[in-house]
């Protein structure tokens, strides 16, 4: 995407990537020009055009305040590329994958917190030996579910160029997270089954992979 050029959308340096792709004259005030530079922007716009269509994206951007348009373009590009990679589920497979990781981590956290609680309790005096034997071991299913509070949504984008939207504060994330490979979940067919369940309001399945195997952090991939 755009790595140079002012946000004033002047087209003195030739057509922007979007107009280049559309093979049309890039006018002053072109809504796409600040976000799709002449070189790599055309490739990114191709994906956006294929999934959303130029006029739909133009309308979307017109309804977004100008200082938010850079973020909107990045998220639209991300969704378009996710949809081209996975024409059936698009971004939904990524969401399902992350939800599974959240549940897995929460389960592990509950277990470790319960274990910590037992370590911190004062040790009771040894019980007299009885014929009934020791109590049954604590099962993960007996543990309370820790539900973390919803965190404030953090924007994940950084301006692609420092000349974009100068009013913006620096943001915490550098890159868009790439779509994880199916190998982190256990195969694309399993992921598709989870995505189907998610779309139809089903539960995340209880038979999650044990902690430390399927719950690895998503790979941070610099978006192409």
């Amino acid at each position: 995407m755009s790595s140079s050029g002012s946000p004033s959308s002047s087209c003195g340096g030739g057509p922007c990537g979007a107009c280049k792709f559309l093979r049309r004259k890039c006018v002053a005030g072109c809504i796409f020009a600040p976000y799709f530079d002449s070189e790599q922007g055309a490739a990114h716009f191709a994906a956006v055009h294929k999934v959303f269509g130029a006029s739909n994206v133009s309308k979307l951007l017109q309804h977004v305040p100008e200082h938010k348009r850079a973020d909107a373009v990045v998220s639209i590009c991300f969704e378009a590329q996710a949809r081209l990679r996975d024409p059936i589920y698009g971004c939904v497979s990524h969401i399902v994958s992350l939800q599974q990781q959240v549940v897995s981590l929460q389960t592990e956290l509950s277990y470790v917190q319960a274990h910590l609680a037992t370590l911190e309790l004062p040790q009771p005096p040894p019980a007299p030996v009885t014929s009934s034997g020791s109590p049954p071991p604590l099962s993960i299913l007996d543990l309370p579910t820790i539900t973390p509070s919803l965190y404030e949504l953090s924007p994940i984008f950084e301006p692609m160029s420092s000349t974009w939207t100068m009013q913006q504060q620096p943001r915490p994330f550098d890159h868009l997270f790439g779509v994880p490979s199916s190998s982190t979940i256990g195969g694309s067919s399993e992921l598709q089954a989870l995505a189907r369940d998610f779309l139809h309001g089903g539960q995340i399945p209880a038979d999650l992979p044990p902690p430390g195997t399927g719950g690895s952090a998503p790979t941070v991939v610099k978006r192409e």
Partner: protein
Amino acid sequence: MNPKRCAACKYLRRKCPKDCIFSPYFPPSDPHKFACIHRIYGAGNVSKMLQQLPVQTRAEAVESLSFEAKCRVDDPVYGCVGIISLLQTQIQKTQTLLAKTQADCCCSNQT
């Protein structure tokens, strides 16, 4: 021609042919679903996308498109990427808390 138009053809104000690509997935009982998809993707793009998919996968594709379109309507700036961001933040914070709790366990074990 279908005696009852599907939600897509009703929205587009056109006749609903027997082989309408939208009719299996957009029943007339849910007009909002197609309205959302049309607003974000456009009928032509959705039709092309569905035509390129095997028939048995089209229902799922429509559901995921509908979900993403609804997210985009609700949040025009981030769409469903906002949900991804929220989940990633949740994962990071839970991982941090887990690491801290595991460290506490180690300390308690040693004392």
